[in-house]
């Protein structure tokens, strides 16, 4: 197994390149897909290699273009559509949810829609109310859609390849604060199966199920708590639908304590589903009520003076874990309105 390191976004670009090289049915479609910004670099070099027909720019017509992608998928192509913000896909709920998600079922299984819809979610630099929503809960509520949220470069590549090879519509949600993280990524084609949760880290005291970027925050919290002898077991829910609960249930049966970290709004969010599944099946194993770490039920404020308090951080996970384990709280420096919590790292200087 290779120890070569790539960034998350490089891993995505490599997955697209490999799939396009291997399968002429695969093409990329999205606003600016072939341009110099290359969707944060994820489509870099593809247009030079495969030409503008297979790396297709489009009008600002998300609804129509998603329908076009559905039609192309029905006729033997495998489109990979990209939205640089999840919100832009909200224009396309009919083709995604009424058509793509149901086509196979409503026509008795004779046709299917092999379509990948990439959506960038995330935060930072004042993205604000209309450029930062993370609606994985919506898609995970729709039978017929698969919903994937990778948290590591390795999974980003392996899951994107699986998504492109899947004969069903797959919503592939990417958190932009993961784009620059490095990690080992094998060369060539490999697959991370859709529908498999993964235990990222073993621990005896508390099970934490996390999605996407919150997996990273969970790891940070786990590192901090490890020094205090409090062990988190981290289950990365890489696929939200179909949701593989087995490793999670197995873990909770050992730890008896559950936390769920998901960067969507709280009410009727994906975290509620995780809690419910566990409670239904591990009721007697639970020593304490499960704890949700989510966004509050608020729109996203633009000013960092407010967004600093909007996003849950590793320290919040750690604090909740201490409470859950009955450990004494640990004093933390107050977060200040001026603090620069609106960037993943100092290299990030906006304006996007």
């Amino acid at each position, binding site marked *: 197994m290779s120890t070569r390191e790539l960034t998350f976004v490089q891993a995505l670009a490599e997955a697209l390149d490999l799939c396009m090289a291997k399968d002429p049915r695969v093409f990329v479609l999205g606003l600016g897909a072939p341009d110099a910004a290359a969707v944060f670099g994820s489509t870099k070099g593809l247009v030079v290699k495969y030409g503008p027909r297979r790396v297709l720019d489009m009008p600002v017509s998300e*609804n129509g273009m998603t329908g076009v992608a559905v*039609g*192309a998928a029905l006729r033997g*192509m495998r489109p990979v559509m990209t939205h640089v913000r999840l919100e832009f896909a909200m224009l396309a709920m009919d083709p995604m949810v009424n058509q793509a998600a149901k086509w196979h079922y409503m*026509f008795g299984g004779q046709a299917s829609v092999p379509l990948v819809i990439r959506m960038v979610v995330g935060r930072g630099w004042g993205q604000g109310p209309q450029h930062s929503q993370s609606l994985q809960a919506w898609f995970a509520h729709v039978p*017929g859609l698969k919903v994937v949220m990778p948290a590591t470069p390795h999974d980003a590549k392996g899951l994107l390849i699986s998504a492109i090879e899947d004969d069903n519509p797959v919503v592939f949600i990417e958190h932009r604060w993961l784009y620059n993280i490095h990690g080992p990524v094998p060369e060539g084609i490999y697959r991370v199966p859709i529908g498999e949760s993964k235990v990222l880290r073993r621990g005896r005291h508390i099970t934490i199920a996390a999605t996407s970027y919150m997996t990273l925050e969970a790891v940070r919290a786990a590192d901090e708590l490890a020094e205090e002898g409090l062990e988190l077991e981290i289950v990365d829910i890489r696929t939200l639908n179909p949701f593989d609960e087995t490793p999670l249930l197995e873990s909770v049966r050992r730890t008896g304590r559950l936390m769920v970290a998901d960067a969507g709004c709280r009410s009727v969010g994906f975290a509620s589903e995780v809690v419910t599944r566990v409670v239904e099946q591990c009721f007697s194993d639970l020593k304490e009520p499960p704890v949700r770490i989510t966004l509050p039920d608020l729109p996203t404020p633009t000013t960092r003076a407010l967004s600093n308090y909007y996003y849950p951080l590793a320290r919040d996970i750690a604090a909740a874990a201490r409470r859950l384990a009955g450990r004494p709280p640990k004093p933390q420096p107050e977060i200040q309105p001026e603090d620069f919590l609106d960037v993943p790292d100092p290299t990030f200087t906006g304006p996007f």
Partner: protein
Amino acid sequence: MATVTGTPPPDVARQMLRSILRIRMVEERIRDLYADQEMRCPTHFSIGQEAVAVGVCAHLRRDEQVTSAHRSHAHYLAKGGDLQAMLAELYGKATGCASGKGGSMHLIDEAAGFLGAVPIVGSTIPIGVGAALASVLQGSPVLAVIFFGDAATETGVFHESLNFAALHRLPVVMVCENNLYSVLSPLSCRHPEGRAITQLAQGHGVWNRHGDGNDAEAVHALAGEAIAHARAGRGPAFLEFKTYRRLEHCGPLEDRHLGYRKPGEYEAWMARDPLKLYSQRLRARELVTSADLETMAREIAVEVEDAVTFARSSPFPTREQLAAHVYAP
């Protein structure tokens, strides 16, 4: 393929008349049977509008693609969709074209090039365009014909699709059946006065024509031009055909008591019923005799009864089918 104009050759003309008669007889039979309350799904009849489907589809190769919407019986049958599978679908049977999971609003026959019909207004327009795009990307362009009603031209997705089809000069023919109404709402509360539907296509720089949707040969001639245009790689074409829905928006009954139709309107259109018009014309042209028509009707009646028997005697899907086909394997 050369541009088709004037009257179609005799065999084509006869075929078209037969096809109109067949669709009419199928739907009239569905009307009778609907009262039994065994076909339990929302059903939109094409009665009075058959000439559009027939005049257009008369040009199409089996592998060319057609999409439609909620009112799709005529398009499905004119394109060669399987009659038995359609009736079984209306009865909700396992042998239906969608295994009973779709019903009248979800017809499909991929073997016949009927890509699919679904009832969200406008939704199949980009899907048809996408089918055409796929064929172009695959290097062997295949025509896609997209049927929809006048109200579909009010959806944003219609314009988005037209723009994209024009941008890439895709082999698409859009066929708008303007029957003057959307459910019970007349054009006057949906379209600006004096703005023709074809003007919308013109706005996108798309080749367009309009004609009499109750005159099978007028439809056939214009469709021939449009299809030749699109097949030749000159980009999409748009056709508007004025026609008229005889029955209620959804269901087997007349609905004149609702009072939304303009006075005299119904009578005027019934006088121009496409089946009546075309059988008269072909008789006048001595291409068919009343005897021929009776033979046709007899043959079709047998075919329809067979289909009805097939549908009614077919099994329902088993309970296991409920959870099947959510995801492709």
